[in-house]
């Protein structure tokens, strides 16, 4: 019986059936996850109960990510929010051999080079967290409120362009949503268009 199940499971993982997980929903409990971070610690969403959590999908080689790190806007926001007690998780879902693939050492080197200022970099090269959140882009942003519900999902701002010039006068959706949460207001703009490079999932799956 065990053998047969193993066989069946293998058949499934070989792609005989396409997994279709339930999509994340605004106002609904955030999909749980657990992953190793760049420091070698296991991080689970449940570790951060009662805190506001930001998820930021990243890919060090993506020009759109480069726009926000090269200009320093991303690090400034990370620094400000983590100082206010927000948990900032930067997630890399790039598969091995794909652009932006992180091992723990390469993630640490990237963080040092960019002066990254979040809470942890999660190594999700299998794409598990990415698929659970249906993360499409880098940077794709999610905010989980203190009750563990999705309070924001979408782009980091309203400028879906790679050109760093586009940062001027951009409407910073994530910063605005975090300010709303801090003030106890409902998030004025809880959903926006995510933009950027495609998340470099392992396409064999």
């Amino acid at each position: 019986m065990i053998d047969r199940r193993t066989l069946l499971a293998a058949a499934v993982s070989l792609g005989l059936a396409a997994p279709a997980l339930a999509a994340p929903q605004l106002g609904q409990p955030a999909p749980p996850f657990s992953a190793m971070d760049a420091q070698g610690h296991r991080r689970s969403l449940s570790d951060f109960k009662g805190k506001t959590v930001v998820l930021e999908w990243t890919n060090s080689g993506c020009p759109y990510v480069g726009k926000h790190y090269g200009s320093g806007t991303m690090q400034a926001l990370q620094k400000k929010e983590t100082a206010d007690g927000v948990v900032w998780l930067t997630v890399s879902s790039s598969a091995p051999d794909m652009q932006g693939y992180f091992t723990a050492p390469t993630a640490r080197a990237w963080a040092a080079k960019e002066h990254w200022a979040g809470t942890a970099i999660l190594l999700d090269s299998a794409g598990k967290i990415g698929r659970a959140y249906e993360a499409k882009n880098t940077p794709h942003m999610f905010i989980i409120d203190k009750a563990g519900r999705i309070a924001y999902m979408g782009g980091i701002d309203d400028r879906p362009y790679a050109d760093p010039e586009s940062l001027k006068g951009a409407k910073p959706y994530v910063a605005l949503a975090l300010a709303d949460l801090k003030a106890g207001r409902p998030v004025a703009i809880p959903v926006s268009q995510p933009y950027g490079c495609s998340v470099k999932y392992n396409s064999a799956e």
Partner: protein
Amino acid sequence: MRFLAGLFLALTMTLPAAAQPPAAVPSPGPAKHVTTELVPEHEGVAPGETIHVALRQQIQKGWHTYWRNSGDSGEPTQIKWTLPTGWQAGGIIWPAPAKIPVGPLMNYGYEGEVLLPVAVTAPANARPGDKVTLKAAVSLLVCAEVCVPEDDALSLTLPVTATPAPAEPMWAKPIAAALAAAPKPAGLAAVFQPRPGGVALAVTGVVLKGANMAGAYFFPFDSTVIDHAKPQAIERGPDGLTLTMAPGYAFQGGKGPAGLAGVLAVGGKAYEIAATPGAPPPGASGLGPPPAKAQGGGGDLGLAAAAVFAFLGGLILNLMPCVVPILAMKAASLAGHGGGEQAEARRQGLAFGIGSVLTFLALAGGLIALKAAGSAIGWGFQLQSPPVVAVLCLLMLAVALNLSGLFEVGTSLQGAGSGLANRGGALGSFFTGALAVVVAAPCTAPFMGPALGWALTQTPAAALTVFLALGLGFAAPFVLVAYAPGLLSRLPRPGPWMEMFRKALAFPMYGAAAWLAWVLAQQSGADDLAKLFAAAVVAGLAAWLAGLAQRRAAMGGKPAVLTAGAGLLAALAVAAVVWPQDKTTELPSEPYSPARLAELRAAGRPVFVNYTAAWCVSCQVNDRVALSTHKTTQAFARHKVAYLKADWTRRDGAIAAELASYGRAGVPLYLVYGTNGGQGVILPSILTPDIVVKAVEAADRH
């Protein structure tokens, strides 16, 4: 600043440094992924005239640029014009995009070469004789798996002419074609409605009546309204169609968008539509999804090519081991005619030809009728049914064993037709032709699939043409020999080589059997494959016993027991793979009907609905791994969950429509309805006992 920005981007790219183009260098640069240029529709422009200028992109193989909505990632091409005072340029007139899947995501864009036309208008006071330079700063994103932004500064200089200038010889036609093909409104009425299973977009209008709706697709202008990567379920109607699409972020936690505008690609054309919220009209649905394409690989064959291939295929069929014995027999009888009997030989050859061609046409007619009856979709439809696949596999094995010499069919099988075929004269030859075709059929099925598949997706006339060519090819050598008996002497004589040839031909047959076993494994999983293998072993035993019986009979024995044993075992083997599977699940279920669902929900019970089918591998896997388990059974009992099964093993329009309403084109689909009313919760397509137990616990709590 722009230069610095470009430099920064170039530095942060992880492509090999050598492949990096220096930023902001005018096109064409050697390392670029897109070569761009501006091309005009006319050789000049008159005062006050509007002409089109196109941005031509030649995109490196494997890379793509983007449509106005780039899909899940990317960025549309932008053109910033710098024009002399009074000159005006419109927006890009976007050609319909292609779907470009990237891993689990979907992009909309262009590959290869594309023309992006723009209308340019000269001011009324432009002076003929002057030259005008149109400058365009193009910024585009080009992606394979990785993305590279590329910037180009382009310009085009045109003379101002007193009267409209002649067409530009190279580009007028391609630009006119791009403009003609660009999506335009066509008086289509469009409404959309969010439903539990997805956003229904109903489009009706004259141009959609009778259109081929296979592959119809909606490209939205706004990137937040639908989930681009999810399939769009197509439902046809007498006046149009309804697409059911997975909702995008715009439908999250609110009232949804005010409109759904975009491009509907259908039947090789693209129309611009703007849908408003509302209930779909009845004319937009009711006729089910478009018929699926045939499985065969001959999708691009033209009729003439298909007929030629069919003729050649028919010729080759003469060499097929199923046919050789019959032809050998008949050829021998033809050889008997000589001299004065020449006319008789011709008559017989012709009769044989007519017999085989007519049989082929009858076969085609039968298949066309079956297809018209709606029960079949192309050649290969019979391969959708696992028992048929299993039986065919056993048949191929039997043919192979026969060719290997384990037993003989010549004596008995030809005996069936020999009463007719052995008759002398033309009638006998006619029936020999018919018999040869019938006996050849098992050889035809696996090897002629593509041509026949193509034929059956065409009009009946085209299908008949292909079968006619097949029949002519099949009959040709024999008829030829009848008319030119000199040829007969040049044919290889029957002899021991035939026995070698026959045994060698067994191996393609073993191959066909192996292929069919693989098909079955795909369709119904490891258990049925094991059953088929067991049946194959039994069939082999039966074949050996039959051979033994035949040899004893040849020596004058009366091997009644052996013959009966062989027959019994053969019947057993076939029965084992045909007999419906014993479906004893540990979970007691009832058949699904909307009425029963409503009744159970009114009674306040949580309900688990399983849309499943016997041929659905993942459904069976889920059933064994997650549903028919101790844990799930207990959870269902604890929460008094009613378990309804919607069985889609046989085509069922009602279930198909419900699946479509949940944005699914197929099974599995698992829905859990809570006790508090409200909508059903969709479970993942891959279940674990935990997922199921948690879902039913949640359903009972509410």
